[in-house]
């Protein structure tokens, strides 16, 4: 009898919750929320946050190497923003993790153990200044497409973090364009840097948006995130948006895309393209990408080396 009452109370709460998000209301950290919703948010936002942090590493490599004083400053500011995005997002995730008694330390340990994943693109190597530019232009471009899509997220703290993030991403988009534009209008070698980078990164860019459905990699979180109004578009819709915004820009600079089948089909108003090797997503998720271990090791070393600082300044328990 009691169990039944409890069930009914739970059901009522759930109905109210669904009604709230369907009315476009924001859910706050202290509000009641279904476990499933909390779990989905934690997965999504901690991965988003840690990806920003891991994503700072490939670009950071190019900060000292940037070819002019102004470029050094620009990319330093950009990497700083990415760390800042990580900060905002991890704070959001940490508040969600309160009921589980998990903190930032635990998130770092999850990362090291391989339980907390980071996005496929940040497992790749940034070999040239062209790659640094391309990351800023197209990897950020892809990230902007997916982040703007969640600006209306039903979870208030995430929506507010995204608003700050997207405002900074406008600078990132232009920062990336600026590096690429200079190379595109430069010497033959400079022009070639960009083409090589497009060739190297193209598949990763398509993988970034995730599989179109469950069948490619066996699981997909897109249905729940749409159901809970965390985002509006599917993975495939986001990938299509990326094509629509960037293909013409790439071509206009006289570059080619390493996919001969790529075309816009006017009838169905969709882009037809060569499917990437979806299996690679699983490889990266196992931290077996080209630089997965190196990146993790950088983070691990810095975490270990600075342990004494965190210990020394930890608030004293009275």
């Amino acid at each position: 009898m009691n169990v039944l009452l409890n069930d009914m109370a739970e059901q009522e709460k759930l109905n109210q919750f669904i009604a709230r998000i369907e009315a476009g209301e924001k859910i706050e950290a202290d509000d009641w929320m279904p476990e499933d919703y909390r779990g989905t948010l934690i997965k999504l936002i901690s991965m988003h946050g840690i990806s920003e942090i891991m994503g700072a590493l490939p670009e950071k490599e190019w900060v000292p190497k940037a070819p002019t004083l102004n470029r050094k400053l620009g990319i330093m500011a950009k990497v700083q923003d990415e760390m800042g995005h990580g900060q905002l997002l991890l704070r959001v995730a940490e508040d969600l993790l309160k009921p589980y008694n998990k903190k930032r330390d635990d998130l770092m340990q999850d990362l090291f153990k391989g339980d907390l994943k980071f996005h496929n693109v940040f497992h790749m190597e940034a070999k040239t200044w062209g790659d640094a530019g391309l990351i800023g232009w197209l990897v950020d471009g892809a990230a902007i497409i997916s982040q703007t899509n969640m600006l209306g997220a039903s979870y208030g703290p995430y929506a507010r973090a995204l608003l700050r993030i997207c405002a900074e991403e406008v600078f990132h988009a232009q920062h990336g364009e600026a590096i690429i534009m200079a190379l595109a209008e430069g010497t033959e070698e400079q022009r070639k840097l960009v083409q090589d980078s497009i060739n190297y990164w193209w598949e990763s860019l398509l993988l970034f948006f995730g599989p179109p459905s469950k069948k490619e990699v066996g699981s997909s979180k897109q249905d729940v995130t749409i159901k809970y109004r965390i985002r509006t578009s599917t993975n495939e819709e986001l990938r299509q948006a990326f094509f629509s915004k960037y293909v013409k820009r790439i071509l206009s600079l006289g570059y080619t895309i390493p996919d001969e089948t790529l075309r816009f089909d006017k009838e169905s108003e969709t882009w037809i393209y060569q499917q990437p090797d979806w299996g690679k997503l699983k490889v990266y998720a196992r931290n077996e990408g080209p630089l997965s271990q190196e990146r993790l090791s950088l983070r691990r070393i810095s975490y270990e080396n600075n342990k004494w600082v965190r210990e020394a300044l930890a608030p004293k328990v009275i």
Partner: protein
Amino acid sequence: METRQKTYFEEFEVFSRKTQTSPVQYHFSLLAPNEDIAIMMAQENFMRREAVDDIWVVKRQNIRKMTAEEKKTLQRLDNKDYRTTKGYGYLKKKWRKYEQEMLDEKEIMSWAGGVKNGE
């Protein structure tokens, strides 16, 4: 008898958020004996003519403000175009040459509602 503080009133600083996505904004301070009363006073004192979505009150002593000396740390040189869109405004003209638009704030933020497919 329990010992009580001599003064009934504590100082509280009041913050609010206008909508669910706007940043929290500071209003003013008020006096109240505790935070529950303070939060009850807040809207009518400072936001009686405006829409508000959430209100925060913080005991003033819990707010660490800057000293005059510390405020000097806020000064910045006006040489940071590299970290704002202002430093990249020239791209607009560049892209025109390629019959493309630069991605500015208006364009990027408009993607929030989804993007219409097209060549």
